[in-house]
């Protein structure tokens, strides 16, 4: 099969499925829609695997815009190829928005990630939403939005130009909004979906401004042109030379402002501090959609964005990369600390996601073009993106199984589930070992490379913070694990009609697939063959000191968690009793949400909006009404003159004559 003939279907099929399922939502039962949606996405997934497989291992060519044949590989170097590029709208002479299909190592990798996670979630959701009993009639809507999301996410990673990315960026935002608000009758879900949309929208505004600045100066949206030849075009457009930072605005180099604004857009979607506040609340959505959107795919869009523009960042704005790695390091530690104090299992995973995405950001932040050591961060980041997508999706799906049985998100309602749910237990354990960074499991490799990249590029402080975070990660994940599966058994289980149990195959199969991918990651072809900053084979340096320290720290974290939470005891409570204020503070997410609410509710709503509305009603409208009132008064006062009373007219007439005569005389 020709790549050019199947590529359009990767985008079209999910979109058509969205339209179809959306329009037939009231006709089909939930199960029928689910089956149709899953089958269709199965086809899309096969196409994605096929395209990615051909790209990495095969050999094919497409024609570029000038009619030249471009191969996927020239020697050992993978090429960036544009499979198709439809004109969508011409904006100015030079700026045209295309909808296209861009293949390079990272987008091909993302195809695999999206296809795998989305397909598994499609299958899993059938069991989760159906057996859950409620909302059968909403299932068509659910699958329609899943299709929309898959479409949007695929469009985002395959974007040939930054504006296409922005378009699909907004579309993933809205599908996230619709899925978080799936249980729209629950007030918590409603406020969560509003919050998610508005916070990311606020960040998107910066993204847009960044695009406007960048496109004004470079006169192009295309990634190809922006990135080509070490971002030469960008350097020229902003007149950046070795000695000068180019055009400035208010004393800052304009390129820094533009690229930082674009990063802020990514920070919004990827829940970097201080835009992270929407992600924990987004857990109000159905758990499978959290696994897909808020763990594996959409939230890494920001990382993908920075990786996509990596040459621009590395050559034109290295100071922004520095900022990214500091913001990332802070976010990683900050989210890990908060995760320690959470009691809602999905919230723990949400903060863990924030923290792990921050790892990816840090890895990109410390990377530069140059040599193997400096480029390591790029590969490490993409590797972590891949491994994290697999094990975090698995952890979320495990949580889905647990919540399904226990019908609560609270840790206190769980405990001792090991004997009831063995498959879930083992999968969850594998996920926890992977995220903690224990050898053999996938997370070990990617996290180790990130830490190595930090240290080898001279970011020692960041290395220390990230290692510390790794220890915290191991601790809170195993706190979660022991609390759910060991600790003390909830006495209700034994007496309950519905004893907790492993779920049907639709829900178990995805867990097993992800578990196999997590354990078998070492057997996958090495990421350093293709997914590198230079798109060619790269030696992966292994620093055994770093690896050793990270294993030791992880084991220490696990040991503390084991000590505190394996069996029910008073130790955790005692420790917490020593500093209740701090615990409360951390549990309340360090009050960052309150600060945001303070700004938005009290200031923007309370002060700006209220005063504008007051001004409008009283001053502007008041003035209009005043004009009307004056006119009315004047006419009321003068209408007496037209009384029709002859005597009055004569009287006025005579008085007038007298007055005029009097005036004339003197």
């Amino acid at each position, binding site marked *: 099969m020709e790549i050019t003939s199947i590529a359009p279907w990767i985008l079209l099929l999910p979109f058509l499925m969205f339209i179809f399922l959306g329009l037939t939502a009231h006709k089909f039962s939930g199960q029928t829609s689910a089956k149709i949606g899953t089958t269709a996405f199965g086809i899309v997934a096969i196409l994605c695997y096929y395209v990615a497989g051909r790209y990495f291992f095969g050999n094919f060519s497409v024609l570029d815009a000038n009619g030249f044949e471009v191969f996927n590989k020239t020697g050992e170097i993978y090429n960036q190829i544009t499979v198709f590029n439809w*004109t*969508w*709208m*011409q*904006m*100015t002479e030079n*700026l045209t928005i295309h909808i296209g299909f861009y293949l390079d190592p990272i987008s091909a990798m993302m195809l695999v990630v999206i296809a795998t996670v989305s397909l598994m979630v499609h299958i899993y959701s059938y069991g989760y939403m159906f057996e859950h009993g409620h909302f059968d009639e909403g299932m068509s809507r659910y699958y329609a939005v899943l299709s929309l999301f898959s479409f949007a996410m695929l469009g985002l990673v395959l974007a040939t130009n930054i*504006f296409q990315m*922005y*378009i*699909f960026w*907004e*579309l993933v935002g*809205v599908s996230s909004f619709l899925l978080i*608000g799936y249980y*729209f*009758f629950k*007030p918590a*879900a*409603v*406020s969560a*979906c*509003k919050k998610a*949309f*508005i916070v990311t*929208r*606020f960040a*998107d*505004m910066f993204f*847009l*401004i960044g695009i*406007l*600045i960048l*496109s*004004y100066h470079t006169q192009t949206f295309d990634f190809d042109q922006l990135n080509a030849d070490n971002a030469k075009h960008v350097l020229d457009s902003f007149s950046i030379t070795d000695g000068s930072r180019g055009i400035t605005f208010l004393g800052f180099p304009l390129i820094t402002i533009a690229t930082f604004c674009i990063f802020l857009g990514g920070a919004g979607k990827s829940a970097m501090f201080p835009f992270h506040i929407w992600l924990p609340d987004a857990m109000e959505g159905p758990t499978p959609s959290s696994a897909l959107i808020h763990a594996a795919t959409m939230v890494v869009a920001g990382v993908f964005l920075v990786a996509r523009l990596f040459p621009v960042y590395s050559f034109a704005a290295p100071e922004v990369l520095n900022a990214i790695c500091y913001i990332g390091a802070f976010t990683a530690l900050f989210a890990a600390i908060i995760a320690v104090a959470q009691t809602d299992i999905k919230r723990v995973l949400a903060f863990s996601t924030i923290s792990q995405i921050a790892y990816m950001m840090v890895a990109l932040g410390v990377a530069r073009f140059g040599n193997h050591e400096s480029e390591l961060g790029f590969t490490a980041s993409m590797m972590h993106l891949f491994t994290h997508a697999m094990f975090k999706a698995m952890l979320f799906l495990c949580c889905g199984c647990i919540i399904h049985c226990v019908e609560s998100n609270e840790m206190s309602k769980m405990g001792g589930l090991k004997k009831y749910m063995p498959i879930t237990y083992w999968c969850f354990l594998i996920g926890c070992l992977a995220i903690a960074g224990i050898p053999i499991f996938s997370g070990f490799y990617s996290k180790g490379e990130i830490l190595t990249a930090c240290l080898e590029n001279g970011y020692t402080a960041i290395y220390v913070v990230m290692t510390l975070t790794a220890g915290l990660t191991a601790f809170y994940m195993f706190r979660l694990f022991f609390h759910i599966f060991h600790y003390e058994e909830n006495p209700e289980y034994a007496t309950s009609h519905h004893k907790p149990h492993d779920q049907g195959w639709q829900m178990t199969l995805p867990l097993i697939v992800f578990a196999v991918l997590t354990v078998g990651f070492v057997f996958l072809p090495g990421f350093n063959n293709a997914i590198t900053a230079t798109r060619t084979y790269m030696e992966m340096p292994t620093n055994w000191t770093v690896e050793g320290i990270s294993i030791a720290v992880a084991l220490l974290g696990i040991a503390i968690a084991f000590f505190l939470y394996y069996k029910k005891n008073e130790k955790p409570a005692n420790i917490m009793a020593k500093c209740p204020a701090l615990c409360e503070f951390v549990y309340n997410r360090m009050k960052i949400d309150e600060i945001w609410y303070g700004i938005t509710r009290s200031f*923007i*709503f309370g002060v*700006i*909006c*209220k005063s*504008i*509305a007051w001004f*409008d009603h009283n001053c*502007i*409208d008041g003035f*209009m009404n005043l004009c*009307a009132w004056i006119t009315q008064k004047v006419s009321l006062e003068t209408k007496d003159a037209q009384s029709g009373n002859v005597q009055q007219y004569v009287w006025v007439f005579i008085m007038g004559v007298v007055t005029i005569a009097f005036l004339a005389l003197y």
Partner: protein
Amino acid sequence: MSEFILLYFVIIPLVMMGVLYLIPGEKKNAIRYTMAGGSALLVALAAYITIGFFEQRAAGMTQPYLFTASKVWYEGFLNIHLSLGVDGISVAMLVLSSVITFTGSFASFAIEDKAKEYFLWFLMLSIGVFGFFISIDLFTMFLFYEVALIPMYLLIGLWGSGPKEYAAMKLTLMLMGGSAFLMVGIFGIYFMSVPEGGVPTFEMVELMKNVSTYMPIEWQHVFFCLTFVGFGVLGAMFPFHTWSPDGHASAPTAVSMLHAGVLMKLGGYGCFRVAMCLMPQASADLGWIFLILTGTSVFYGAYSACVQNDLKYINAYSSVSHCGMVLFALLMMNNTAFTGAFLQMLSHGLMTALFFSLIGSIYGRTHTRDIRLMGGMMNIMPVLCVCYVIAGMASLGLPGLSGFVAEMNIFVGSFQRSVLAFEEGNWMFLIFTILACTSIVITAVYILRVVGKMLFGPIQDQHHATLTDANYYEKVAAFGLIICVAAIGMFPSVWTDLLNISLPNLVSLFADKTIVAPF
């Protein structure tokens, strides 16, 4: 009569008025079918004109206006012609007007009281609107403009709700105030632009040459301000926008649709055609004054909408913001911004019409428009609510729906212009462009506030639980508009191509003008 094919846009409603006049008032269905059939005919005519326009252009007819026809109307003291013609922009506006007349007729099916009289005035309104867009003679344009305004008074005053007399009076008086400015401006242009030894003319094409050549620049400044304010009042420009919230709140559904959907477009269209294209030098010199006003409208309307509780007030203020965006983009005076402005007119027309038709349907059932008193509507009337969410998404600029393409053209165009201005030392443009960009966030806030409070959440009032969902004519109205909104959003190049047939010529009027701004 084939050269007067555009006149059918006026003749069809006139014939419909005649037919309606003959149908006895009790035969509601006959009246409805007449309306549906007649307005479908208008849509067909608009489609025919659009296709014909593309074909004629493809055949190499390059004059600025096509389908032109001219006939002397009155040749005494004033030199008045009935001159018709369309360019790409007016074709787009005709499509918009016909779609909204069509869907508006369906949305009016719910009217029981004095339906015949209602539809007669409704048709009168549409005659004014169509006549305005097909005229290329300043006087006929103004005439039709007035024809469109007067029926509003009766439609709101008789079939409205709430403080309808107050609202009708306020709306009519403010708009009439605007047309007083306009009249002075139009006659001023007429008398002051006479070439030596020539006759004065209302003909647009000639005026475009004459005004800039023969009229002293001081007078151009005066008449630019007069006409821009005159049309700006109808375009809800700050601070002349207060008729809009009250007027819309009291107007019946279809009247709000037609008014926000089309009549407010007359404002932007007129500002462009009359004030700017006739006096490009004046608009370059004085544009900054109105840029401040319209830029203010954009975020002022958005912030005001955030704290309203009446659905119609929210959408009226949102209209202030979106229509402000239209005028704002026009004043940026480059091709991209103009394209954005006209796309925004189409987009705002369609989605506001959609909003008002849905609000009408919801209000007709719940008898309240206070969002605090409603909740969980999604459970009760899913079709209406899904349509409402789609309208909201169009309004906050979701890609794939019309708002996005319009706003992006506006932002890119404005940005190009404001950076140019910035490089010449003028800050103002950049500040207002950034402020306009922030409105995309605020729009999301007020749209989601309504969606969250009214559509989502638990059912607030148990009396609402038994209400019915949309019936067939409401579905026709809503689905028709949604299809149009999506058609613009997904295939914008059809519309940008249509607009770009005519825009480059007009843009060249402004190309050599230097930007003037105080800061």
